[in-house]
């Protein structure tokens, strides 16, 4: 299999883009990424999007984005894996480069959630769970998270503060970030006094509703020497698990993430301790804690304590969500996985501005579909 490189990234600000459509956001991100890479065309386009068919009543986004980019004729598909749709699109694009069929691929993730009422966005999110088993009894994404939260506190004998520390950390890192939806700090007290969404999960412990698009350009070995833009080497792996956590051997362990992380470390020839920074899928605070523990970056029940000790600060042992993660940078479902990898690329090419981590060599991004039913893990190496 050939090597895969990231050669360019493009991001839109995440927010409520009332005056722009889903396709316009994706085109903005795509053009920025192509410009960053210094390329005008690619062999294939992969589009990550979760809820377009439901919220915009728009499928067939591959052909539409190709047309909007003036690239009619280019193969283009949409890839869907719930909240991990963007990462799934990267996975598909990377496989085409690795197979040797393509030498340049554009991956665009986009979502426009403000086109729906909050009830419709919740319904869209619920589509990532199994409707017959969870949706129809009213157990939505957040109530499942609340059950995990309760179980976590009971098993490890901890209070909510060691879980609510993660949104505080994401907000701290998002402060002043130009593309972040919520670029400001939020105190632990404020998080813990916000209203319950589903007890014990509070409003400030879940990611908000936002619109945004992110794009990356992937290239292969042949183009590597010709493209002048800063590059990173990409490894990506994926795994699945039972859809509901309560069918799993241990609900407080994302087995899919464990498998995908080990696989990607193995393929990249990297030790876990050599990972310099990490992007965690903090759709909720409790998912952040479980993710860090499931993937071996913290002992079970210990991640919050590590966070409180500064281990995941920008200057800590393992900088976490360095631009704010899902909670503060924002979580436009199908775009989120692409934002994560684009941000890692900025860090590893020394272009992270005031959020720059000190000389990172290896970064990891974890993207989850549903409550961990899909895990897609990307590892970038500095060149």
């Amino acid at each position: 299999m050939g090597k895969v490189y990231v050669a360019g990234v493009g991001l839109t600000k995440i927010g409520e883009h009332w005056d722009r459509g889903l396709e316009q956001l994706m085109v903005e991100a795509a053009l920025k990424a192509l410009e960053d890479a210094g390329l005008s065309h690619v062999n294939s386009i992969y589009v990550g999007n979760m809820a377009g068919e439901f919220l915009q009543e728009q499928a067939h986004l591959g052909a539409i984005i190709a047309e909007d980019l003036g690239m009619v004729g280019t193969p283009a598909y949409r890839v869907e894996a719930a909240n991990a749709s963007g990462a799934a699109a990267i996975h598909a694009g990377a496989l085409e480069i690795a197979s040797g069929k393509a030498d340049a691929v554009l991956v665009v993730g986009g979502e426009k959630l403000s086109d729906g009422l909050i009830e419709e966005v919740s319904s869209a999110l619920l589509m990532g769970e199994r409707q017959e088993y969870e949706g129809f009894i009213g157990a939505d994404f957040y109530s499942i998270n609340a059950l995990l939260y309760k179980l976590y506190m009971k098993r490890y004998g901890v209070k909510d503060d060691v879980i609510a520390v993660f949104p505080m950390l994401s907000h701290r890192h998002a402060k002043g970030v130009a593309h972040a939806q919520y670029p400001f700090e939020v105190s632990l007290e404020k998080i813990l006094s916000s209203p319950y969404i589903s007890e014990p999960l509070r409003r400030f412990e879940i990611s908000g509703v936002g619109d945004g698009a992110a794009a990356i350009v992937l290239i292969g070995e042949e183009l590597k020497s010709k493209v002048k833009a800063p590059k990173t080497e990409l490894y990506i792996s994926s795994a699945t698990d039972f859809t509901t956590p309560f069918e799993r051997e241990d609900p407080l362990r994302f087995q899919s993430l464990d498998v995908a992380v080990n696989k990607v470390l193995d393929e990249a020839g990297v030790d876990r301790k050599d990972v310099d920074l990490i992007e965690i899928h903090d759709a909720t605070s409790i998912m952040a804690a479980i993710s860090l523990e499931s993937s071996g970056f913290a002992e079970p029940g210990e991640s919050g304590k590590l966070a409180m000790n500064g281990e995941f600060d920008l200057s800590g042992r393992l900088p976490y969500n360095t631009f704010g993660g899902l909670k503060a940078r924002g979580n436009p479902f199908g775009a989120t996985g692409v934002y994560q990898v684009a941000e890692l690329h900025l860090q590893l090419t020394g272009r992270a501005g005031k959020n720059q981590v000190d000389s990172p060599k290896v970064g990891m991004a974890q993207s989850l579909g549903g409550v961990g039913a899909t895990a897609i893990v990307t590892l970038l190496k500095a060149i």
Partner: protein
Amino acid sequence: MVRLNGVAIQGYGGYVPRYRIRAEEIGRLWGREKQELPIEEKAVAGLDEDSVTMAVEAARIAVKRAGIDPKKIGAIHVGSESKPYAVKPTGTIVAEAIGAGQNILAADLEFACKAGTEAIQLITGLVESGRIEYGLAIGTDTAQGRPGDALEYTAASGAAALLIGRLTDDAVASIEAWSSYVTDTPDFWRREHENYPSHAARFTGQPAYFRHVLGSINELLSDEGYSTKDIDYFVFHQPNVKFPLAVAKALKLEREKISSGLISGFLGNPYSATSLLGLVKILDGAKPGDVILLASFGSGAGSDAYIIRVLDGIEEKRDRAPKLKDFIERKIYIDYASYARFRGKLRLR
């Protein structure tokens, strides 16, 4: 911006029903925590009240304050989105009730929450052109909010009336300028035969309320117009407590210039009457020479903004009739069950 010539408020009146329901009581029913509630409490019309009776109350106060013979009123325009009759004018009922004559123009207006300020535009035009001597502009609503919806916490009842005539030495305030800003923005609507309005949640913020309110205000504050420094009081439409404060922040206004006109925290949002009741509250305390900027907002969407300069007549006329404070302080708390009965939320068949 349109400058008006020789048109003044000769009398004004606000009316708020005596019943209040605390937001906490509504939240108790629907499982909302206190920190999620947009206001403290709201005014609720009683069993024997509707948007017509409240319009009459406000109009009587305005006429009393003006001290004129109601037979001299040449036009009554009533803005509301909660008319008790789908077909039958409110203006005619008000006219009969206050003793106006029969050779008058009576017409109703609807533009979500800004129909009351639209009535001012029509009346000032008729007065300025000399077609009528006096006219009444009224905003009145028993606002509807679907049970359990975010609107239910704020949708309130109230009415306000301005009696407008030619500028005279004893006028309450002159109306100096107005501007309007409207677009086709579907942020909130109620279709025929529906009991409650629908809305597009946060879409009613930036693209609707803020864009239109700032659109009309900025027209008045343009190069040839007024500066925020020239204006002593600002009053905006208040769908909740946060939105008018956000407009004040965008305009970099001092808190004291906006606090006098805030009513939604303790009266709620009586739709067409809201910004006018804020104006009434300011007039109750203003002194001659004060300049007021009033900006309404109606979903669908649009905003009317006015520059109003308080005149000497306020001093003598103010105490001729009950002030808004009297209605604000007169209150009886009711529970959700009474509220449901009063507002027709219990459908028996």
